[in-house]
């Protein structure tokens, strides 16, 4: 028995390392759990990308749920996400609001011209201060905000077809069931 003790100790370490590997492949260690989940979205007032003199605020969007998608022309992962948004937007059932993050408006417009524009509404946060209130630390990030202005779901990193089908769409269905 006591001779096997080092072996058991070794197996324990193997199990620990195995768990570590499994844990780190199963979840994104960079994804920060948002403390804003299921809390009211921060108030914001931001200009429209194509009409900078017109501002959109949180209260303007109350009443109907929407998906706020943080993107930028400098964001490499956004290019990965964009085809998914293009394909999925018509069947999402909620307004897709584009949140142009820390971007020169001309660059954003050119990027949207090149890649297509799936957004129903586009707002621009060039200084990036409002994004701090949302806990944004990189693009792309997506927030599902319900009719009462509460953040119901958040995804960090590009939305993939898989994430849309298994996470986003069920979350949208739940929100729509409450406030059609």
């Amino acid at each position: 028995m006591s001779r096997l003790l080092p072996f058991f100790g070794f197996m324990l370490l193997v199990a620990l390392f195995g768990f570590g590997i499994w844990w780190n492949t199963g979840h994104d260690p960079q994804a920060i759990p948002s403390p804003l989940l299921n809390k009211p979205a921060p108030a914001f007032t931001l200009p429209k990308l194509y009409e900078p003199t017109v501002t959109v605020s949180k209260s303007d969007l109350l009443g109907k749920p929407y998906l706020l998608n943080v993107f930028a022309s400098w964001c490499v992962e956004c290019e990965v996400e964009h085809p998914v948004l293009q394909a999925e937007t018509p069947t999402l059932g909620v307004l897709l609001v584009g949140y142009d993050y820390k971007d020169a408006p001309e660059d954003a417009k050119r990027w949207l011209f090149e890649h297509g524009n799936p957004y129903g509404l586009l707002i621009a946060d060039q200084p990036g201060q409002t994004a701090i209130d949302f806990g944004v630390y990189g693009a792309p990030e997506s927030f599902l905000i319900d009719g009462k202005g509460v953040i119901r779901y958040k995804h960090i990193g590009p939305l993939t077809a898989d994430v849309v089908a298994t996470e986003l769409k069920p979350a949208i269905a739940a929100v729509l069931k409450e406030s059609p």
Partner: protein
Amino acid sequence: MRHRLWILLVLLAFVGVLHAQAIEPMPFTNHAQELRFQQLTAQLRCPMCQNETLADSNAPIARDLRNQIFQQMQQGKSDEEIKQYLVARYSDYVLYDPPLKAGTVLLWFGPLLILLGGAGVVLMAIRKRSRTAMAAENLSDSEPTEHGDDW
């Protein structure tokens, strides 16, 4: 010798340049505030880059957060208030020093548990050895074994 000193000076100058690029100067009102700022940002973690503090990171978000912290300092907010502000947005992740709460009990006391466990194993091993040693002594009282006084 003088030659070497020159090389050292030139290298040091480069260090200065690198540092200046990473952290842009801020209009602090006094030196105490600057020290406080450096201390606070060194305790906070950049959300974008796991292994860098807000003080070190050159990521755009770190720069924005440094500006935010600077502005809040000018408004007279305390360190605790500024930390609360960041935690409300980026969760405990931004704190390098995790707070003691239900979810972090294992993190705080896990090492102690492992230490106690290790001490237990050692204690058991010692007891067992002394017991077997005693048994061996009883068996061969007249001729002490070579390993008799291992412990």
